């Protein structure tokens, strides 16, 4: 296979991990919405936790994205 084509395929394969991250972030925000709907008074505490979970999960997406960028641009 052509090396250029292989690197592009490799970058595409590297971002398959984003599927799991999408599920994870969806889970976090669905739980956040549910908990705020059940107990609106807890909004301030729960919102911070939700954003923290979002940032930690998003980092996994960025690891995959970084690998894809490294494959593509170096």
């Amino acid at each position, binding site marked *: 296979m*052509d090396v*250029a*084509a292989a*690197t*592009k395929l490799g970058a595409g394969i590297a971002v398959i991990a984003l599927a799991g991250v999408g599920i994870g972030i969806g889970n976090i925000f669905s739980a956040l919405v549910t908990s705020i709907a059940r107990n609106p008074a807890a909004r301030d505490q729960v919102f911070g936790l939700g*954003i*923290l979970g979002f*940032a*930690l999960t*998003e*980092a996994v997406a*960025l*690891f995959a*994205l*970084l690998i894809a*960028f490294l494959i*593509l*641009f*170096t």
Partner: protein
Amino acid sequence: MGGTGIVAAASDGTGEPSIDALGQFVLHPMAGPTASWLTFTQANIIMVIGAGLVLWLLYYGAKPRAVVPGRLQAAAELSHDFIYRMAIDQIGPEGKAYFPFVFTLFFFVLMGNLLGLIPFSFTYTSHIAVTAALALMVIVIVTIVALREHGLKFFTYFFPDGAPVFLAPLIVPIEVISYLSRPVSLSIRLFANMVAGHVMFAVFASFVVMLGGASILGAVGAAFPLAINVVLMGFELLVAALQAYVFAILTCIYLHDAVHLH
């Protein structure tokens, strides 16, 4: 890093300009013999500016000591109280002692992320050398704090209470590995966020240039990647603050583990 991209122009063979998305992270030593001897680069200049901005905010913000604060004093007090409450909430009453460390760390990372969003500026947190140094400092200080607070009892941290003893060969290596992987994840999280954000800026900006140079129709189409870049700038402002917050709160959580051992 840097140089011309290998990938972009290779397959289609039309000689189109390649996207050099990582060239923005190359360090250039400043002019002058002392600067080049110290390898004082643009990253170091932004670091000095960021540290100076924080000092300026706190010094001139705290100076009036008004009962009803002005804008600058309110900004200084809000930032102080925000980190103070975070340290106390996460670490407990002992967090007071570690608040200056967390505060310094938060503002150094925040300034790096925010100043990097100014065009023609440089994001020093986009270098693994900077974030790894910060994360290693955090983990060394956390370990020293734990050893000082608990002495050799600290090593019971790697074997939770109530676990069956015959599981020790399994649990202890897992706990040790998870402890040692903290600086890795802490540094790569910040570094990857910043690099990914700025590479996305560069990729969409290069789409604007390529489309705009193509034809009249392309110039109209170039509005879309430009609009995406504008939205991305707002998102990156959020990410800049969020990643500084995450860095600081994870430091607090590690310090909590060090002070309380679980």
